């Protein structure tokens, strides 16, 4: 079955990205396919490569990144929601003449159309709100 997930909570602030991550691992383990994980609202912070939790805590952006690498996942951060909140890749940083960028490997910035497309093509769209 084809799943997509939408995540609206910021990591370390609400549990929603933790739940979504565990859910993603479980569905992949069962052999389902994960079409896309779409990060919207405060969920965009899941893509910050600058997240620096203490060594004895989970690093959610890094976990997503590893999972994406293992399974070739499409982790999409809504570009409009991301730019507002300071989530930039090199291209956007250059475009808006900002001093730096902070997108974790494995994530891409893209339009809200990716949420709608995922909703259309997936058998199940699961929202993890905060």
């Amino acid at each position, binding site marked *: 079955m084809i799943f997509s997930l939408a995540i609206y909570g910021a990591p370390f602030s609400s549990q*929603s990205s933790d739940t979504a991550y*565990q*859910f993603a691992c*479980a569905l992949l383990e*069962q052999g*389902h396919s994960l079409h896309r994980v779409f990060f919207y609202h405060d969920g965009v912070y899941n893509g910050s490569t600058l997240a620096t939790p203490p060594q004895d805590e989970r690093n959610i952006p890094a976990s997503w990144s590893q999972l994406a690498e293992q399974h070739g996942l499409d982790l999409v951060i809504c570009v409009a929601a991301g730019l507002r909140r300071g989530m930039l890749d090199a291209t956007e940083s250059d475009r808006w003449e900002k001093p730096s960028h902070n997108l974790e490997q494995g994530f891409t910035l893209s339009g809200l159309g990716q949420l709608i497309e995922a909703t259309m093509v997936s058998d*199940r769209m699961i929202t993890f*709100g905060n």
Partner: protein
Amino acid sequence: MILHTVNRSPFGSDCLQSCLDIATIDSGVILIEDGVYCALANTELTELISTALTRHKIYVLSPDLQARGIADAVAEGIEAVDYAGFVELCTQFDKVVSWY
């Protein structure tokens, strides 16, 4: 048939109530995150839950129960599942609606 997810405690949010008001008979409800407090036995919700159980299957995410120290205080009739069980439920119902 819909599987509803509820992630808020019933003691400060309308999520559970709204979800139950709307859910058609035989649809499922899974309590996750702070929503697991809805599953507590011997609270002011006992009647609401027992009525709901006559219309719906209610599930609760066990890692979230365990984390909150209430794994042994779950109302009768509510079934605990792990993440794998949560995924399976999502496949058994036609779609998933989130209440948060």
